[in-house]
């Protein structure tokens, strides 16, 4: 077969596809102004809207959303629990209580941080060569109509036709179940949703952390709620009354309010995600109704293993895929000149304070691309669907009736009505189909129109979510 003498390529001698780590990696801190020969790591030229800390070890979305609030609420509530309730309960009941509480608290905080600080499954953008190759294919198959051919490709997965869309930003056909998050400006594999409470997208790599977080948070909230109720009941015994008990232990009042309003939404969210896990669906697919068989088509989820146990295991206990973006790898010397450093961030160990914007500003910027649209399945009480409605911050504060609201509620509805109204508007908003879910998802406030009309005044906070 070899009639010509081909020059043997020595793979070691070539400047390659794989970057050669330059000898002394001087800390790339503040490298932007230096000469191109300074070794740069890939996170410094990462084109998406992410921030990196610890020299690329930690990745967060550009807007941390209300993550500081989530973390603060959890820490404050647990702190009050340990200070006010535990001493009394240890004396009167059992010393297991602070132990269980402590374990749950540690578990919740660790999984929360892992959800926020892990790469959710970001797909690196296509190289210029790949993009050119794909463009060529698209142009060659274009027909002679005056409209450009739709940039979708159909594949057959388990006898189901699935359309793969072309991502204009990342210059590639998105793999199945991948979606482009406009907040982070990345394509994320097995995209579930962008969670403002966690300040990150939830995707293939961190879904299990997210699920563990919400389940353990449900346990923690229910546990604290139960303990506080027991504590106050014990104190109020002997005819002393609830007011007396609350005066003796004011922290318990705060905990009671926070837990009472949050336990329902968090339990609902856990229930919803348990349903998603058992049927191997993502929030995005559930909202869009991709596999629900609308319009009389015979569709079923092609990714499901048709067995609840196997679905759960594969989603939660499957192999942990590696991060594809190789944040800490070094750029090859010739590429560092060409790669556009769109948004490089100087590394800093101090987390920026996002709360300075104020909660209203946070809510306005914190939108979740796929939102409540489809009908609630069988009327289950998990009204907090794609909207990770972490009650703790939501209900006690009348200005934040929902986690997903793009616009804060007009005026200040009384706190006791906020929850009822929030539930009502959630249900109403869910019936509004969200038209803008195709293609690159973008927070579009004009889309809030139909939703807010359907949901009424406070409904705006939910439906406006995009």
């Amino acid at each position, binding site marked *: 077969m070899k009639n*010509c003498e081909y020059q043997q390529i020595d793979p070691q001698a070539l400047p390659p*596809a794989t970057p050669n780590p330059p000898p002394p990696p001087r800390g790339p801190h503040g490298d932007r102004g230096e000469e191109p020969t300074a070794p740069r790591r890939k996170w410094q030229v990462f084109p998406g809207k992410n921030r990196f800390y610890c020299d690329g070890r930690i990745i967060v979305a550009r807007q941390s959303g209300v993550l500081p609030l989530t973390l603060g609420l959890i820490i404050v509530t647990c702190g009050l629990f340990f200070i006010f309730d535990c001493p009394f309960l240890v004396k009167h009941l059992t010393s297991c209580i602070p132990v269980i509480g402590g374990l749950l608290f540690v578990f919740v905080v*660790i999984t929360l941080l892992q959800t926020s600080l892990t790469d959710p499954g970001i797909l690196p953008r296509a190289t210029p*060569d790949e993009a050119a190759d794909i463009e060529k294919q698209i142009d060659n198959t274009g027909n002679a109509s005056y409209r450009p051919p739709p940039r979708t490709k159909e594949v057959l997965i*388990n006898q189901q036709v699935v359309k*793969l869309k072309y991502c204009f930003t990342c210059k*590639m056909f998105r793999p199945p179940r991948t979606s482009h998050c406009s907040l982070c400006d990345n394509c994320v594999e097995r995209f579930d949703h962008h969670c403002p409470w966690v300040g990150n997208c939830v995707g293939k790599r961190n879904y299990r952390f997210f699920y563990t977080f919400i389940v353990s948070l449900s346990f923690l909230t229910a546990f604290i709620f139960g303990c506080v109720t027991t504590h106050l009941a014990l104190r109020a015994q002997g005819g002393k009354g609830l007011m007396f008990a609350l005066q003796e232990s004011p922290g318990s009042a705060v905990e009671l309010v926070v837990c009472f309003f949050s336990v329902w939404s968090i339990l609902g969210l856990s229930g919803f995600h348990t349903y998603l896990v058992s049927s191997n669906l993502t929030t995005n697919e559930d909202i869009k109704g991709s596999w629900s068989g609308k319009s009389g088509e015979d569709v079923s989820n092609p990714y499901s293993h048709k067995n609840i146990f196997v679905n759960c295991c594969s989603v939660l206990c499957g192999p942990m895929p*590696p991060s594809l973006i190789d944040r800490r790898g070094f750029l090859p010397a*010739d590429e560092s000149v060409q790669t556009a450093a769109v948004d490089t961030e100087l590394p800093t160990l101090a987390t920026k304070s996002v709360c300075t914007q104020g909660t209203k500003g946070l809510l306005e910027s914190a939108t979740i691309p796929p939102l409540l649209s489809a009908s609630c399945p069988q009327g289950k009480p998990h009204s907090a669907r794609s909207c990770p409605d972490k009650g703790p911050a939501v209900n006690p504060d009348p200005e934040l009736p929902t986690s997903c609201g793009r616009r804060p509620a007009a005026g200040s509805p009384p706190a006791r009505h906020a929850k009822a109204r929030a539930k009502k508007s959630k249900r109403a908003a869910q019936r509004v189909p969200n038209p803008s879910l195709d293609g690159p998802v973008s927070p579009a406030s004009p889309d809030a129109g139909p939703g807010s009309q359907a949901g009424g005044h406070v409904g705006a906070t939910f439906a406006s979510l995009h």
Partner: protein
Amino acid sequence: GRSFNASLLSSFNIGITGLCFKKVKTHSLQDLRQPAVSSKVFVQRDYNSGTISKFQTKFPSELESRLDKQQFEETIQTLNNLYAEAEKLGGKSYLEGCLACLTAYTIFLCMETHYEKVLKKISRYIKDQNEKIYAPRGLLLTDPIERGLRVVEITIFEDRSIGSGR
């Protein structure tokens, strides 16, 4: 046909030489160690079995002159099998997952996962294939992990042989 391929290669050549090599290409002995990139072929993912990592085994026409179809298919099939091994759902991966969950996933910080071990195996296999089969034919396989598991990139280098009519 061939003329199409030739024009394709030349357009690629124009487009990408700037990206890859900065050295001037002259016909000297020194340059034999750094051949110019002629074009790149991208083997795309095969999604017919779902979202698992699998590449198409269809033989690209640009490689017809350089490589055996069977050789190519064998390489890609072995890669597919290795990725399937990495992503296999079975007792071992479930055990790893459950253990990780119990420790709040902190073991991921200290332990190398099964997937990572197989990825190392894959990169060794690709290196081996490059040395034995692809480099002698003026080709270079790029590890798909360098391309986000999107494509298997095969770089075709210019044919420096004397009197080649291709």
